[in-house]
């Protein structure tokens, strides 16, 4: 194999980054939440931030979102330095963060409403994404009439409808029941394939991270740093039903647990 072929193969293996964080540190007074953290998020793939509680994974996600300012370091999204929230990123909240006084369609269209999109246009877009997440028929229901899983589908549709290239998800499935969570995880795999967006996904579930991720960044606490990056490759194309039985899947789950167990109280 020639030099150029090797370089091309390498570039193929590690695709370009949609989001990069460089030497991020974050202090709350004397408490060091993140120290000198650098991480690349490949375009069109799903990267999980995984770690024990208190490891700063949500802090990192909110810094990428522009909701928190880092004490030092910088975040680049598509080559632009982040100074605050922007239309290139959309956030999915752990507690859904829906407007309880607004119908599903208004909630889904909220991001577009804030961008000044006309009512008829934003409702047409919202309707499409409501169908896509499987909530057709619930357009005029209110959040308190929906189950936890359905509410998070609303939150997901709201993030999708603004058509941001980067989707930031903060433990999106932790407040829904186990069976709904499994369905969500399967749907998420399809979403990553079809939407061609970059997903950054915070979770504390090892199985969930290995199941849905193209790349897993393991964060260790006090202060947080990236201890390991794992890129599962073998089972992604075997279909949603077969992943959980794949030997590589099981090995990675075990390996991650072995490195995290000493940090869990």
């Amino acid at each position, binding site marked *: 194999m020639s030099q150029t072929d090797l370089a091309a193969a390498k570039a193929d293996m590690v695709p370009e980054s949609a989001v990069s964080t460089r030497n991020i540190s974050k202090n709350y007074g004397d408490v060091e939440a993140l120290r000198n953290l650098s991480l690349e998020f490949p375009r069109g793939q799903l990267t999980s931030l995984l770690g024990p509680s208190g490891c700063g994974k949500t802090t990192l996600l909110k810094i990428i979102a522009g909701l928190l300012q880092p004490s030092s370091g910088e975040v680049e999204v598509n080559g632009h330095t982040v100074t605050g*929230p922007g239309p290139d990123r959309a*956030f999915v909240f752990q507690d859904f963060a829906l407007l309880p006084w607004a119908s599903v369609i208004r909630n889904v269209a*909220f991001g577009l*409403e804030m961008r000044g999109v006309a009512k008829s246009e934003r409702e047409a877009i919202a309707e499409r994404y409501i169908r896509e997440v499987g909530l057709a028929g619930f357009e005029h229901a209110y959040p308190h009439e929906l189950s936890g899983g359905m509410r998070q589908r609303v939150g997901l549709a709201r993030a999708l409808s*603004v058509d941001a290239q980067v989707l930031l998800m903060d433990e999106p499935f932790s407040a829904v029941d186990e069976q709904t969570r499994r369905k969500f995880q399967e749907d998420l795999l399809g979403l990553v394939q079809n939407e061609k967006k970059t997903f950054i996904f915070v979770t504390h579930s090892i199985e969930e991270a290995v199941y849905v991720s193209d790349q897993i960044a393991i964060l260790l606490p006090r202060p947080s740093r990236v201890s390991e990056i794992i890129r599962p490759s073998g089972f992604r194309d075997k279909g949603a039903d077969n992943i959980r039985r794949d030997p590589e899947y099981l090995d990675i789950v075990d390996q991650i647990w072995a490195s995290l167990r000493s940090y869990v109280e």
Partner: protein
Amino acid sequence: MTVFGYRLPGMSSLIVWGLLWEIVGQMGLTFFIPPLSEVIATLFAVIGTAAFQKALAETAYAFSAGVFFAITIGIPVGILMGKNRLLDELLLPWVNVFLSAPLTALVPVLMVLFGFGMKSIVITTTLFGIWIIILNARAGVKQINRSLVEMAHSFGASPWNAFTKIYLWAALPEILGGVRIGIIRAVKGVIIGQLLISIVGFGALFELYSANFLMAHFWAVLIVLFALAFTIAEFLAYLERRVAYYAAKR
């Protein structure tokens, strides 16, 4: 409540109390309590008189003006206090002092400052209503779910949009609760103001009737006032229930 298998409509107990009043009145025990039937007859007679309608108009004016100022000043001040730490530290002690202060004692001071007229009564009404409105708006803003604020921020909401489309709605149940209590207090304020100044509105009427021992007239006007205050409070409670469906789920 059901009696002998019949379902009684709400407030049927008023009939019992009305009957008791009628009996005591008919017995002629004291001039102070004329029979209810006489009071009601007087009520309809009084409602038509120019003096009553003038009093009602003046009271309605003082009340609406006072409540208008209490709401339009109280809600923004409360929201600003909830959002701004410095303003909160500056104003909160005063709001708490005035909320518990016997404001009636202030009315003579107001009379000296603003004269024996409508202006003093409007200010009295505002002072009675405004403090609880401020406190509730402040509490409403303080309890807004942090992730709703972050959500608005992350989707690029302008400060004005965040205020009108998130903060105001998220705090609405508390704000309406405060407005309801504030308005009930304002009813007291407008009557107390008129009684102490006693040359305008119902204050003048009360003065006239009690000085001349016209007890039927006195009770008739009192019933009208109680009914008005009760109706206003019930209407506001109804509005509050309209937003209760999301109050517990924010």
